[in-house]
């Protein structure tokens, strides 16, 4: 026997569930427990009372004629929550599955105050098409004039049928013997297939179609107020489209604007507004939306991103740099970098302003983009970046200078060889190596000749020699052999490290003439030297010289 107290408990549990489902995601144990609890309560109820019907008054919920809930608080009342949208009765039927209970609770937990929805609770329940939950609603509040039906019907019926007219019709009909023409048009399987195909191919995103219509509407617009209105519609459509991960609509729109202006389709006043739409795509608002979409994992093809980037103008650059620093998703950052690598070309100085950004990773990415663009006029902006407090930025700037520069940046790079960080110095050595001028070789050789060179780590030394090995000339070989033969009484270990690096390099270069010197050292007590010498000998014997 179910009593009102059970119904009271169920209502309280529903109120709790309404809150819990708002707070917790569906994989959270509290969420799962809440759904389980309500499911158990409802099915338990239905074991004794089938169906379970709750009736709603403005501030009360009734079960079996008893008030089981009363709350006049506008914000909190569960009774009012249902009542205000016209729900008067809610019935749960036996056999209700857990899924349907969960769907119902999800509808219940919608925060109509916060979420700007065009749906009320009845619409949400209607869309769920519940099988075990029925509800009765009062639709009277939907219309302003409750007497409309009565008035309209009596008005329409007002002129009652004219007997004479009917009989005249009959007389006319009988008088002629013409048979009625019948056109039965049976539906075929092909018709069905064709319709199914049309439904399936109907794109869910209609923004591009609306943009097409808006372009047509410009032909019918009269006066600046209407032009402005239409351009605002276009902007909000583009905003809506990009918010849903549709970049094609923006690409189409800008292209169409440009071709329309070029072909003189509209008068010059309209063109002003169309240019405004074009600019909107370069705005912070649009670019930020693009960033959000990218960060949410939406991926665009490289071709589409390129098409889009080509259409942007320099005004987009600062906004793109801004989002580059905000994005959390690595593929989103990559996409933004790709866009900036295209649009950045339109104003290198503007792009280079990103080097002043307080976020080291933004600066590094901007340098990377400048590297990608590869224009020499970026070099002047990079020279300061080699002194950036963050070593990752310095390395990127050095790499960029190495790739983009020529002899004119060597003096900057030379300074970087004294960077306090070894990895930066190694990057510098490589960058110097990329600029294959006599001066770059000299810088490396001079550095090796420095007394302090011996103190460097084996890796750094090896890097020097490896880079140097690209110059396969006698000077370099002589230097290497000389180092290989150099003996030391103090700091022998460090000296052997340098010799090992030289041996490694001779091996890389495949210098046959150095064989004797190498063989002499293959029995060295220093393991590092011994191993590198043996590797070099083998390499030379095998004829595996580099390049």
């Amino acid at each position, binding site marked *: 026997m179910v009593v009102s107290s059970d119904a009271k408990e169920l209502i309280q549990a529903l109120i709790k569930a309404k809150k819990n489902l708002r707070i917790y995601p569906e994989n959270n144990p509290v969420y799962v427990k809440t759904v389980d609890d309500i499911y158990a309560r409802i099915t338990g109820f239905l074991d004794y009372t089938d169906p379970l019907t709750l009736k709603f008054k403005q501030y009360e919920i009734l079960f079996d004629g008893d008030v089981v809930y009363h709350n006049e608080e506008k914000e909190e009342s569960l009774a009012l929550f249902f009542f205000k949208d016209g729900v008067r009765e809610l019935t749960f039927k036996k056999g209700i599955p857990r899924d349907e209970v969960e769907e119902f609770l999800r509808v219940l937990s919608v925060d109509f105050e916060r979420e700007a929805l*065009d749906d009320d609770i009845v619409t949400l329940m209607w869309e769920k098409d519940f099988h075990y939950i029925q509800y009765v609603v009062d639709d009277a509040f939907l219309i302003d004039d409750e007497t409309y039906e009565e008035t309209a019907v009596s008005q329409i019926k007002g002129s009652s049928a004219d007997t004479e007219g009917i009989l005249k019709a009959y007389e006319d009909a009988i008088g002629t013997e013409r048979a009625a023409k019948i056109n039965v048009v049976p539906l075929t399987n092909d018709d069905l297939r064709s319709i199914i195909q049309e439904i399936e191919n109907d794109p869910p995103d209609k923004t591009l179609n609306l943009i097409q219509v808006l372009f047509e509407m410009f032909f019918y617009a009269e006066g600046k107020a209407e032009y402005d209105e239409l351009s605002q519609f276009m902007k909000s459509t583009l905003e809506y489209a990009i918010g849903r991960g549709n970049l094609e609509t923006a690409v189409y729109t800008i292209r169409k604007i440009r071709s329309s202006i070029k072909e003189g389709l509209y008068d010059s006043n309209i063109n002003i507004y169309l240019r405004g739409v074009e600019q909107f795509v370069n705005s912070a608002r649009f670019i930020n939306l693009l960033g959000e979409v990218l960060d949410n994992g939406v991926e665009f093809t490289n071709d589409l991103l390129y098409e889009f980037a080509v259409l942007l103008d320099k005004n987009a650059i600062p906004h793109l740099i801004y989002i580059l620093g905000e994005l959390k998703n690595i593929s989103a950052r990559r996409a933004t970098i790709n866009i900036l690598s295209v649009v950045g070309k339109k104003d290198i100085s503007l792009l280079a302003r990103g080097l002043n950004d307080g976020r080291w990773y933004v600066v590094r990415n901007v340098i990377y983009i400048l590297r990608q663009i590869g224009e020499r006029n970026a070099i002047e902006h990079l020279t300061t970046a080699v002194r950036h407090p963050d070593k990752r930025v310095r390395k990127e700037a050095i790499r960029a200078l190495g790739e983009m520069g020529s002899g004119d940046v060597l003096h900057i790079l030379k300074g970087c060889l004294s960077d306090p960080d070894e990895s930066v110095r190694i990057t510098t050595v490589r960058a110097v190596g990329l600029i294959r001028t006599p001066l770059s070789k000299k810088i490396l050789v001079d550095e090796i000749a420095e007394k302090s060179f011996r103190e460097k780590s084996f890796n750094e030394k090896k890097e020097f020699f490896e880079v140097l090995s690209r110059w396969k000339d006698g000077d370099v070989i002589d230097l290497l052999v000389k180092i290989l033969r150099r003996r030391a009484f103090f700091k022998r270990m460090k000296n052997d490290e340098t010799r090992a690096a030289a041996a490694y390099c001779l091996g890389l270069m495949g210098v046959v003439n150095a064989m004797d010197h190498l063989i002499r050292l293959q029995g060295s007590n220093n393991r590092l030297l011994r191993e590198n010498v043996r590797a070099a000998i083998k390499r030379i014997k095998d004829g595996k010289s580099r390049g």
Partner: protein
Amino acid sequence: MEKAGVNTEVDGKTILNQFAVVLRTGNFYDADNVAVKSAVEKFLNIANPAIEAEGVFRIDLIGEYFYINDTRVRYPLEYILNFDYLVREFRRRDLGSVIFDAPLGVDDVKAFLKTFINSIYSNTPFEAMEASLEETPGIRVEKLKRVREEGSLDRRKIVKKSYFNAVSFTKGIMNKLRAGEKVSLKKAKRVVESMVDTLLAEEQLLIGMTAIKDYDEYTYHHCVNVSVLSIAIGQKIGLNRRALTELGLIALFHDIGKMEIPKEILNKPTAFTEEEWRVIMRHPYWGARTILKLKGPDKISIRSALVAFQHHINRDNTGYPKLHEPMALDFYSKIVSVADQYDAMTSSRVYSRVPLPPDRALSVMMERTESQIDPILFKFFVNMVGVYPIGTLVLLDTREMGLVYECNPLFADRPRVMIIVDKGGKKIKGSVVDLTEKDSTNRYTRSIVKTLDPNKYRINLAEYLL
């Protein structure tokens, strides 16, 4: 408004479809043919678990719809031909229900198939089936019950209320928009949901409402009529409930731009000047603008604006507004265009006082397929409203005259007709007859021989249909 359903529907439609496949295949091939065998096996595989689970498995034909264990089966578009076949064949045999009391074997189904096929050669097919199936325990049949008329008054009341609520709401919206007030989309959705529910339950009654035209409130009635007819087409082509609501809502707003037409033009009783036509032809432009102003872009407002702009543009891109570049019409625009043209042609408007009779309007529309309206959607439309749509004045071969009262989606040329003049030429307040009824010699009792224009004779449809 009450909404419910039972979960057997999901499997029910598949079982019912396979049942139709068995009968159709069996009609073409011998029972031992591999195609029949395979169809029977497939049927048994899906039907037997349901029979076991439910104990009794009833297939009932009530009105136009099948019910499985008292739950109406909503069938998807791909099944529609099979379901139509099943309805037709059940009716031909006066068969109302097939009841499976126990899991079936191959021989049981074969026995049923044989009985079903042979029964059509009997003068009393149902009785022949009933007798023959006595030897097949586990399968029973029941005779087709005519849809009870007692409840029809109530059903009519509910449908009428739903329809006039929608008209009243539309009028309210238009007035609010004119006054620059906010309108509630939530309420609009609720009104359309109610229409969708009504249409799914009482399609013919709601379509019948669209035949009643109100000259004074034409614009509001027209919006609702186009919405109802669009939903009905949508249902025929298999759109789901949510899509039907969207379509209904979008169709309801298709003529919202007419609000901008000055009343002196809209209500002008004489022919329009060229300039006045130019103003009228701007309403699609105004419609799209109004919708986009009313609501920022979202799924519904975007499509509503498209439809408002495109509903007078033809398939070949002629019509108005004149396009400067080719444009593919939205699918919903094509649906709304069919509904719009039909309702406009059959309505008495200020600028076109004499409406076309429904069957004549269909003929005109038929001529417009290919260049103006979508031919396949038009076919669906005709199959829905019938060759003689509701409100058509017809002379029968019995020398009775009547108004088409309800269409029969399965027999497009055999609607239900309200007799208003008897065979003696006397005006009567009519009974409704079904033109699919046959006499003992299996010949139709009544057939249409001629249609007439009810407007020409000033016959007020509302008096009969409301």
